[in-house]
């Protein structure tokens, strides 16, 4: 009897210890009198049942923007930026390699064929090969030009320049510091949301500065102009599978423009093709990205803003359209798609503390969305073949982000094996990179 009691006590103790590992530990520091909280490195979110693991080890770390391909070593490793420089993290072990020190490099993406890290430094596009640790200067950037996207076979990089340069008063001002601080060396993600952002965007939009969309040949360095325009163009994304197909955006307040365009980088005098035509005031199509197979462009469609939200898709090869409807209050800052195209993610959102106009209530979560097509009823008519195919998204909560400050965008991306979603968050204070498991913990 005494023995049984002891066993039970031991079992209870063991359970308690295992459980405690997954909980924040907190105490009052005797010297300073401050409360100290140590968060676990891996835990099961009690509100969702999904395992969350912290990948970064340095406060102020970040994953790349949600559209930037960031995987290498056959999908086993991922690029992160830290206050110190650029790291690679092994997704399975959490082992971290410091690739670069310093804040003078801006990462574009990893190469889909070679796995090299593409970055710009000192007016050059450079590559770092994680396998050989070799660094190479690849092409010199044109004066005033910036590059953003490398095509799928790593023969071209796309970028833009403003003729005569950006006027200083139109350039981006550094917004107030968000909680958790900025991550250094990360020009794209710096200060996602700020009160002055929209006014500044309007000024830049109205200026109609002449711009050039160009490509550089990574073998010859040849500069080629694809487009000259006075529209404000931005967000260049090559197809992940078609080396000649480039998506770009007309930047500005999204209800004032038709944003998403396609252009062929492998044709003479290519004509831009509009992906989504607005038909409603205050309708917007934004936050576009490619499916992993390059067959679909997906985007955040609000018709109108905040009231009726979709993840909309366009197939540039068949002109098919699919629109998945979001249930109320599930609008998310960004969406993403799993490598097999079967699942979507959403970063959630918070109307408080940002000046986003979309207002979703109780949406501070990382979401998984399962798409369902609305079934056709019997008796299809010929005109239906050209129509939008509608569906809906069934949400599942993955991570409670109630403590997250959404002035930092989570930028969720699926891992190449589709089993985890990578995101950044400041919900424990400093910005760190996390992964949440798509499957529920056993």
């Amino acid at each position, binding site marked *: 009897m005494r023995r049984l009691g002891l066993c039970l006590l031991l079992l209870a103790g063991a359970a308690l210890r295992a459980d405690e590992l997954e909980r924040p530990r907190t105490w009052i520091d005797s010297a300073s009198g401050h409360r100290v909280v140590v968060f676990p490195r891996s835990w099961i979110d009690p509100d969702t049942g999904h395992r969350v693991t912290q990948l970064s080890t340095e406060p102020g770390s970040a994953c790349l923007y949600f559209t930037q391909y960031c995987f290498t070593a056959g999908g086993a490793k991922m690029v992160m930026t830290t206050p110190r420089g650029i790291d690679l993290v092994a997704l399975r072990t959490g082992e971290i390699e410091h690739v670069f020190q310093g804040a003078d490099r801006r990462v574009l993406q990893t190469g889909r064929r070679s796995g090299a890290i593409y970055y710009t430094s000192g007016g050059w596009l450079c590559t770092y090969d994680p396998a050989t640790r070799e660094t190479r200067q690849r092409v010199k950037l044109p004066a005033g030009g910036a590059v953003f996207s490398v095509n799928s076979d790593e023969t071209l990089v796309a970028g833009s320049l403003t003729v005569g340069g950006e006027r200083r008063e139109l350039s981006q001002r550094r917004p107030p510091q968000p909680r958790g601080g900025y991550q250094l060396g990360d020009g794209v993600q710096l200060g996602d949301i700020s009160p002055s952002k929209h006014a500044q965007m309007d000024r830049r939009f109205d200026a109609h500065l002449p711009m050039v969309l160009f490509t550089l040949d990574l073998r010859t360095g040849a500069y080629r102009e694809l487009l000259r325009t006075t529209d404000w163009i931005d967000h260049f994304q090559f197809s992940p599978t078609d080396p000649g197909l480039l998506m770009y955006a007309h930047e500005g307040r999204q209800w004032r*423009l038709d944003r998403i365009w396609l252009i062929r980088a492998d044709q003479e005098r290519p004509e831009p093709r509009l992906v989504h035509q607005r038909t409603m005031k205050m309708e917007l199509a934004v936050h576009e990205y490619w499916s992993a197979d390059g067959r679909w462009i997906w985007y955040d469609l609000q018709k109108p*803003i905040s009231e009726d939200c979709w993840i909309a898709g366009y197939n540039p090869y068949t002109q098919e359209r699919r629109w998945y409807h979001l249930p109320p209050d599930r609008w998310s800052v960004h969406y993403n798609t799993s490598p097999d195209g079967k699942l979507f993610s959403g970063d959630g959102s918070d109307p408080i503390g940002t000046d986003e106009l979309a207002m979703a209530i109780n949406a501070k979560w990382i979401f998984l969305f399962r798409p369902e097509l609305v079934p*056709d009823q*019997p*008796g299809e008519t010929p005109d239906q073949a050209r*129509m939008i195919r*509608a569906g809906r998204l069934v949400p599942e909560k993955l991570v409670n982000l109630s403590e997250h400050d959404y002035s930092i965008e989570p930028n969720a991306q699926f891992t190449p094996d589709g089993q985890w979603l990578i995101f950044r968050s400041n919900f424990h204070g400093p910005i760190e990179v996390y992964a949440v498991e798509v499957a529920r913990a056993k």
Partner: protein
Amino acid sequence: MKSLLRLLPALAGLLPARAALPSWVDPDTGHRVVQLSADPSVESLYFTQYAFTAGGSKMVMTVPRTGNIDVVTLATGENEHVYTEGRARVVQTGRKTGAIYYVKGGYLYALDPATKQSRQLVKVPDNGGIAAINCDETLAAGTITLNDHISKDSIRRKEGAAPKILPGGIEQGDIPSQVDKHAMMDRRLAARLPCSLFTIDLRTGAVKILVQGTDWLNHQQFSPTDPGLLIYAHEGRQWKVDRVWLIRADRDGAKPMLVHQRTMRMEIAVHEFWSNDGQWVWYDLQTPLSEDFWVGGYNVKDGRRVWYHLPGGLWMVHYNVSPDGTLFSGDGSDPQIHYAQSKDAKWMFLLRPELIPDQPGETPDQAHMIQAGRFVPEKLVNLAKHDYSLEPNGMFSPDGKWVIFRSNFRGPIGVFAVEVAKAK
């Protein structure tokens, strides 16, 4: 004696007739509900049929079992039997004269509810039906269909036919069964029967064919203010057709104009109706079916479009608009019966429209775009006990202060009105 009988209705008007009919404040909504029909099995008209007379003070009700016609004085609840000869099918009341237009035995009649005198106007064309009278009461519109054995066999409520009584004593309503009705609609649409849209001159009896073809045409509704403007529907399962069309009835060779073009599979535009001022055609828009609900509006004068979004997946069998155009009504719905799986929707609703504000910096292309808004719903009547196989057919009273509807929520079918303002 005869003169005394003639006096009786007048005397009845002086009596506190309202006291005889139930009236209560819905405890769940705080809105007053008044019963308007004195006899059982009396119904209000379809939500698009103009039903008011005597300057808007009285409303037509029908007795489908007999084909008789009653009139209720809205202020007092007094019921009058204005037509008792049976087998009449009411088209609508005249917006100019207040006459009750009805079809019986192949002829169109105008009944003066004050004198209860009927006047035979024109013969309805063979194989034809009449659905609408224009605003100056010079034209009627309808369709002629050849060889239609499909809908005739299937549509239960033919002229004066007795409704079936379901087990439990509830009268069978508009939806005999979704399966039967939809199968019939598919057969009828696929049959591509010769079908013509016509008008008939009420003074001369001249018939004019506006549209001729094999589309299934239906639901003619003249503009309430423009005597030459008519909307009509391409009938059928709504995801197979572009349904709502406009045509000028006063121009030779007029071309029909499509009011709403579908762009999505399983998108539907249905249950269209006119605004009281004749400026807007409103319709139930679903993008797609049962998922995303709107009331879409098209302005026939300037081509503007306004779409009001229904919040939270709420869908209503029918919508209607107040005479001043500032409020909408919705009949609610029941997921047990309807495709739409709206939660907590078995209510009569008041829908307050709000436009989504434009942000600064309008661009020229926005002028041609749809203006979107949303409805803010308010519950008017709890219809938890209503069997939605009977459509409530909500419509505003001409003074805009009441929404009139029919319901079986108290057992037998009756006509009720709910006050738009909350009870004090």
